[in-house]
């Protein structure tokens, strides 16, 4: 039987027809000795905030991002039997966050709704005397500019510059060629610079 020594099962509720010790999520990592529950706890502690931020860059909406990352953790818990190592699990979480962010964007129209809301408010570019407001405006402008990019460009830029993934890692994560990564990265960067040019002028 694969896996480590049997661990007394967690209460499982109603079902009884299951061989408890075969549950894959009870498998322990050879590297860390973590089981799936421990892995979720450890990775949550270390990466919850940064993963939610990653998703916010993609979906713009914090509540949605939190749901996306929760889903990713639940999925990771289920796959722990395969992953078993923290760095693999983190790579998996990131990929799951990107993919799920994309799904919710497609299906919920998060960006569209947000942009519609923003449009009602007018350009979020008015300079403000108040520093906190200026920070908030700048952040909103960056998120809006990201949201306005084509999906692939947004994903590549965020993976490249927020997660610091290499071109090869991005190609792998998005299942596109390295050439496509290059092309999306350069076009996305140019588009973002164009949209955010005013930030520059304010800073200089």
């Amino acid at each position, binding site marked *: 039987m694969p896996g480590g020594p049997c661990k007394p099962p967690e209460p499982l509720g109603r079902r009884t027809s299951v061989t408890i010790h075969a549950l894959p999520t009870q498998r322990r990592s050879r590297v860390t000795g973590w089981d799936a529950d421990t892995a979720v706890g450890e990775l949550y502690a270390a990466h919850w905030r940064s993963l939610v931020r990653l998703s916010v860059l993609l979906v713009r909406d*914090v509540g949605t991002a939190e*749901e996306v990352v929760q889903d990713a953790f*639940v999925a990771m818990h*289920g796959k722990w039997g395969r992953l078993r190592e923290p760095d693999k699990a983190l790579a998996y979480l990131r990929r799951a966050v990107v993919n799920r962010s*994309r799904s919710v964007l497609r299906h919920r129209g998060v960006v569209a709704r947000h942009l519609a809301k923003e449009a009602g408010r007018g350009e979020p570019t008015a300079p403000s005397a108040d520093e906190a407001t200026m920070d908030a405006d700048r952040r909103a402008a*960056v998120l809006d500019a990201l949201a306005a990019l084509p999906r692939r460009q947004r994903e590549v830029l965020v993976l490249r510059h927020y997660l610091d993934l290499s071109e090869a890692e991005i190609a792998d994560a998005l299942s596109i*060629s390295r050439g496509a990564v*290059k092309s999306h990265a350069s076009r996305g960067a140019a588009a973002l*610079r164009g949209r955010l040019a005013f930030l520059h002028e304010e800073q200089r």
Partner: protein
Amino acid sequence: MNNHDPGHDPELRRLLDDAVRDINPHEGISAIRARTNEKEKPMPRRSALFGAAGAAVATAAVIGVVVATGALDTDDKDGDNTPVATPRTPSATVDDPTPATSDPTPDDPDTAPEGHAIAVYHLGDSGRGPVLYREFQRLDEPDHGFADDLGALMSPPLDPDYRTLWQPGDLTGATLDETSEVLRVEIRDAAMRQRPDGISRAEAEASVQQVVYTLQAAAGERAPVQFVLDGNPVDQVWGVATAEPLAHAFEALSMMSITTPAEGETVSGTFTATGVNNGFEAWVGYQILKDGNEVASDFGMAEGWAEEKLFPWEVEVDVSDLEPGEYVLRFHNDDPSGGTEGSGPDEDTRTIIVE
């Protein structure tokens, strides 16, 4: 701001970091724990049967499978997948970001990411008759296990040079029996035992191998494939003997298959094409054709040849001298006979847009 190397842009990095610096999410571990504890209630059987009568099969790009809760895929034995969660709602649809079933495949994120590319085999022509080409399709949907692969198998391929003879609904579900290490695929009805009019014997044989290769790719292992009807082995499918589990047949494959670029992909400058082949001395040739005339050609090398497997290759393709427009990229194996014997080398083509 003048730095146009996307690899090093501290400015963008700073902007992105800053943009979410003030995001401090709510606590989420309680909700995660609640859901992972719920997940530990395994379902009674592992199965990726989907939808009633194949009604759920859509095109590959828009697979939205309504999964009956009672037939969810679980993995209660070897279990590198989790026993799958009961969806939070009675059915999981495209609007639900939670995967309704987990894919009973290797879940190494390098090969089977969530939401993800799947490898599906389709028929194409070669000098030696119909052969199988591997095509990667991206599904922007949660993972529905084998349902995704079967759905793609029964839907038109991305590359118009390929085809599939399976109709939606022909193959109604697939499972991997991890005790016997056999992949089981359910066919629609007994009428499928006979070869339909208009399908040649060679096409029928290739189509059966198409199912074998696609399911093996999905499962991540070379398990033999048993066609079943109402759960029992069926003696033949489209006139091809299927009473016993079928192994993959290497000769069913095209010996040249392009992985990237995808059909219709836009390219520029120099890009890396990838694929697999098995050709004389590991040679990998390409031509770029405009209206059937060669405008560029070069070659590269695969990682090997001669054994009974396909070897990966990567070849840099330079299109920087080409006028923008549509071209055909043709990769082909060497033909040591110079075309004087045999059926000519296997090849694969993609339409590319040079910009």
